């Protein structure tokens, strides 16, 4: 196959799969701009919206490895947690600067992901998935046992005074916008095509000259950098980290559910999924405090069975209910 026809084929994939629905993308951009107004228009809801932004960023982080490359990670909370600890350690050494926090978290997490990825990304998808779960549990163990990280007791961070609290909101917004922008650029670049090619057929991609392990490591490093940046902003805003906060199950599970609901491996999907589920979760947490993880489990089951390609795909579906129903029974035993 010539390079020209290969890239033409990839472009076709990209139009259908990578960019997602164009309308959905515009809706995401406009909503994102509106979110910039929150500290001025709805100051009382800043913390809520900052949390939503954090989940949006985490969903984009997960989408790079889980969505585009098709390597499901159950351990991305590791990077969120390590990012949070980067800020905590800097604060413990007298550095209280959000730019330094994010920069350190991005570098540390990308490097850490590359290091861990070197052995485990040579594995096929499901081995990788469990290995990431192992990484998450192991790092939580290790951090809880290290005195330098405060052990299970955790570390406190210096927080800015009440009047300037909105800088955490804007920082979270910037990280999230950066994550969306990075995903958009990657999706349109050869790098993104390489990720998708690996997902669709690893052997064929390797034959076309895409070194699988190298590209997967790049994808995971990007994923880790995004999650780390989100953690680096979360920690100073929260004012305290310990292993149970930094490596919380919610931060691990929510981004996966949000991405698959919105549309795995699309630019707009994670945003749409994250906004909808954060909203629902907020209402659930208000009325039925104990059932929100239960609800998320049910959403995963329902989405995998009924909406395997997510909402973005449903918006762009031609052929109505019949096509949809037909697609559901495609893999029946």
């Amino acid at each position, binding site marked *: 196959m010539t390079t020209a026809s290969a890239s033409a084929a990839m472009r076709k994939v990209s139009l259908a799969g990578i960019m997602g629905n164009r309308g959905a993308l515009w809706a995401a951009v406009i909503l994102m701009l509106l979110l910039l107004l929150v500290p001025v228009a709805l100051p009382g809801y800043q913390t809520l919206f900052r949390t939503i932004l954090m989940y949006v960023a985490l969903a984009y982080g997960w989408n790079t490895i889980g969505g585009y490359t098709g390597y*499901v990670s159950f351990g991305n909370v590791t990077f969120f947690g390590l990012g949070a600890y980067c800020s905590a350690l800097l604060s413990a050494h007298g550095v209280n600067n959000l730019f330094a926090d994010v920069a350190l978290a991005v570098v540390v997490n990308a490097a850490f992901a590359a290091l861990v990825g070197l*052995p485990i990304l040579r594995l096929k998808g499901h081995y990788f*998935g469990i290995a990431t*779960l192992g990484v998450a549990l192991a790092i939580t163990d290790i951090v809880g046992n290290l005195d330098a990280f405060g052990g299970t007791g955790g570390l406190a961070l210096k927080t800015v005074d009440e009047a300037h609290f909105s800088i955490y909101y804007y920082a979270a917004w910037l990280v999230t916008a950066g994550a969306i922008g990075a995903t958009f650029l990657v999706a349109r670049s050869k790098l993104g095509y390489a990720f998708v090619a690996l997902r669709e057929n690893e052997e064929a991609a390797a034959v076309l000259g895409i070194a699988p392990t190298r590209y997967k490591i790049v994808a995971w490093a990007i994923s880790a950098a995004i999650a780390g940046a989100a953690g680096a902003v979360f920690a100073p805003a929260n004012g305290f980290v310990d292993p149970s906060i930094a490596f919380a199950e919610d931060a691990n599970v929510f981004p*996966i559910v949000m991405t698959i609901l919105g549309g795995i491996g699309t630019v707009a999907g994670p945003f749409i999924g994250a906004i909808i589920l954060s909203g629902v979760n907020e209402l659930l947490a208000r009325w039925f405090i104990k*059932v929100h993880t239960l609800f*998320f*489990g049910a959403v995963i089951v329902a989405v*995998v069975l009924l909406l395997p390609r997510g909402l973005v795909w449903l918006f762009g579906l031609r052929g109505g209910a019949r096509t949809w129903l037909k697609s559901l029974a495609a893999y*029946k035993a």
Partner: protein
Amino acid sequence: MHLLAQDLVNGILAGGILAVVALGFSLVWGIMNIINLAHGAFVMLGAYVTWQLFSSFHVDPFLSLPVSFAVLFTLGYLIQRFLINWVARAPVLTTFLLTFGLSLLVVNVALLIWTGDTKGVTTAYSGTNFTVAGVTVPWAKLYTLLAALLITGVMQLWLTRSKTGRAIRATAMDIGAAQLSGVRVAHIYAIVFGLGAGLAGVAGTLISLSYSLNPSMGQPFLIKAFVVCVLGGLGSVEGALVGGLTYGIVEAFASQIDVTIGTQHISGTGLQDAVALVVLLIVLIVRPRGIMGRATA
């Protein structure tokens, strides 16, 4: 020397349980290519079934083995028949996510029913032990190991000798040929998943004798089951047994790690998950198809 012998015995005793945990996981994975992320949740359910019977009706944990098997088998059969079979032929990723969602569901339902408080099953013989040549052996763990070996043996016999067992192995080898020979694949798949869940339930019952119970207790066992499968190779009974015992021994020795660097004290007992990960990584790098694994994809 005493310490080494004690570690070895502890490892073998723990390894027997791990073999049963891994057996069901390995069958489901090897036969249907489904990585059941709800396996740890099933283990937890088995332990709670035992606890419930013990605390409400004073049923001995060993007598509740058939009950937890039956309850979990039924649950597993229904889940596969009515949910997973819809996507049974989809890429691994799909069933991976589906069972992950199921695991969240099961754990959180358990949290609603039994709350997050730690519970325990304390029988007349828990806490009692005997000593041979300086090595202490708790009775409960010895019984557990014997039960584990018995269950493994029965499974092996059933899979190789019974009609259903042969249909299961035929399905694993070639679905098309099995269907042509009259095997109802949807039903066999449901039986296999039921068996996997049932074995997880049995393992949960055995675990309840030596470990405390809470709804998220299954997660570490899921990881360990995976490591054991990778160690022993997929879909085989003897692989699960060898992998389980090996892992149990490695973990027992690793728990003896006790070093101090500067002011930092590192103890192996607090780092069990890290040990599991290290073992997994070493095996995956050195021997990706497992100790007993054959060269088939």
